[in-house]
């Protein structure tokens, strides 16, 4: 599969890719937090490695807002390496020679799992905005249905960064007896006003695009690429740090000796963000972006427990490893510490490490030796407890 032209956003049609999917909710529907039910819906997923006979080596990787099920190997749509290729694979930290790694496209996503882009079986057309509004808990319940379908009783580890980390926390709360260890990375137990504010800016950019067509762009054969690209540009800034932007770009100019006294991309950072925006449009659905960011905004794990986060972890016996990054201003260390405090109050087993880095929120996706050392150590320790070591 070749990578689509990076600037072909206008009228872009994603190549038809057949994702590996399974139908869930056939016997029992998925009951969503909003009250709606989903029946007989597809979930796209990838697995890496082999499930052992005792079914004790399964790791569920939960992806973030813009991620998908293609954790490792080449992405079938972009041709680029999977989003956590650096961590997942033979001999790597999530060692696929040892673990059975599962990653599913989240509910509401646009890589084959039921979401606004997929076909509504009742109408035969795309769901669009008639798709029910979903929550992080709904995503996790759908993942649990996938495990049931794969006949996997419990997880050796559930791990994820950013929105993936929120799913990890929700797993521990909803299915305490199905999680042996949990690694929430660079995340929060609730979406802050700042988080919601950035998401709302992104959503406004999408819905302000004339090609959004009140969410019906698919039927009308257009793509709100400008709005989605702007949403991505804003979000991308929040994933980086001032220090990383400075060291990457500073005030360097793009292909020119001096400023052009106009509104072209004079600066490298502008050109970079435009590129990020336009490539994102090639692989992501605008309505999906609305639904997923909404699910993140609704996330407040303590809410179900009378506002007491520790209650969410009362039933869990999981070993937790909470990880944050010094320059992450989207989900700052204080929010991880808040999770740790609640885990302590629930007398849970918890490790917590803050990793020194300039890479901001995105650090969990990058080459961060200290982060990897901590992660590897934690998993080895959990291994020893679980008795996976040969």
């Amino acid at each position: 599969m070749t990578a689509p032209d990076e600037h072909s956003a206008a009228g872009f049609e994603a190549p038809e890719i057949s994702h590996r999917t399974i139908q869930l909710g056939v016997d029992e529907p998925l009951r969503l937090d909003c009250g709606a039910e989903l029946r007989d819906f597809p979930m796209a997923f990838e697995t890496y490695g082999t499930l052992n006979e005792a079914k004790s080596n399964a790791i569920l990787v939960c992806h973030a807002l813009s991620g998908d099920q293609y954790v490792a190997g080449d992405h079938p749509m972009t041709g680029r390496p999977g989003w956590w290729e650096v961590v997942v694979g033979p001999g790597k930290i999530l060692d696929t020679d040892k673990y059975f790694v599962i990653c599913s496209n989240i509910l509401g996503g646009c890589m084959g799992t039921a979401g606004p882009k997929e076909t509504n079986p009742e109408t035969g057309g795309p769901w669009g905005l008639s798709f029910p509004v979903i929550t992080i808990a709904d995503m996790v319940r759908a993942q649990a249905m996938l495990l049931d379908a794969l006949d996997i009783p419990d997880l050796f580890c559930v791990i994820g960064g950013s929105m993936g980390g929120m799913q990890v926390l929700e797993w521990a709360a909803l299915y305490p007896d199905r999680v042996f260890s949990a690694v929430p990375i660079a995340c929060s137990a609730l979406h802050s006003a700042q988080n919601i504010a950035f998401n709302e800016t992104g959503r406004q950019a999408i819905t302000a695009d004339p090609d959004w067509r009140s969410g019906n762009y698919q039927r009308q054969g257009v793509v709100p690429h400008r709005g989605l690209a702007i949403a991505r540009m804003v979000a991308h800034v929040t994933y980086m740090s001032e220090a990383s932007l400075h060291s990457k770009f500073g005030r360097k100019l793009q292909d020119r000796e001096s400023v052009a006294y106009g509104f072209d991309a004079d600066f490298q950072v502008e050109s970079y963000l435009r590129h990020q925006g336009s490539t994102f449009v090639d692989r992501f659905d605008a309505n999906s972006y609305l639904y997923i960011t909404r699910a993140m905004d609704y996330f407040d794990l303590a809410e179900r427990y009378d506002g007491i986060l520790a209650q969410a972890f009362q039933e869990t016996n999981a070993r937790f490893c909470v990880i944050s990054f010094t320059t992450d201003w989207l989900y700052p260390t204080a929010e991880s510490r808040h999770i740790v405090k609640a885990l302590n109050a629930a007398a849970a087993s918890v490790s917590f490490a803050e990793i020194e880095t300039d890479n901001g929120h995105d650090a969990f996706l990058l080459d961060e030796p200290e982060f990897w050392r901590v992660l590897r150590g934690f998993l080895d320790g959990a291994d020893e407890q679980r008795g996976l070591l040969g």
Partner: protein
Amino acid sequence: MNMARKESEARRDAIRVDLQLIADMVEPGSRVLDVGCGDGELLDYLVHFKQVDGRGIELSTSGVNACVSAGLPVIQGDADTDLDDYPAAAFDYVLLSQTLQATMAPKQVIENMLRIGKRAIVSFPNFAHWRCRVGLALQGRMPVNESLPDQWYDTPNIHFCTIKDFVLLCDEMNITIERSISLDSTGRARGIGSGMFFANLMGEQAVFLLHRS
């Protein structure tokens, strides 16, 4: 990998003598919180040789990351502020080794330790050791030696006490001293018991096993 594992096994059973004293006071299989666990030497020993369910709190990021990388459940935190988060009687033992003198509010830390743990084990350098006394009396200088290596202006130790001071504090706080041991400069351990004067003079450090009266 296997070689490294064997080496660490060999290192594991040779811990510092004061840590060994603490470890010997801990019942196998119990729940333990090590406050100020450093790079996890004691915690690692307890987990592997006493099969405890162990947790740690450590102030330094490097210490925390070393512990977590070694598979120990340790969080970054502060004895003065972060013990409040734990529920009462969550642990069988709460340990504080060579950290009491560096806390802002030692009395509250001890109070908290005995709230969240059924027992507390505390070790600290004894400021009434004869070498400290001699240094102050004859040289007129604050003590600097192997167990107190820092100059007064850059020491993390802000609340020094003597063995006698500590016993009096326990008395005031209605804390029962189950065991008390002093360690002299050669690493020899002695029960403190009624030999307070001698222990307070000869003990370079002390280890106390405490519970609420």
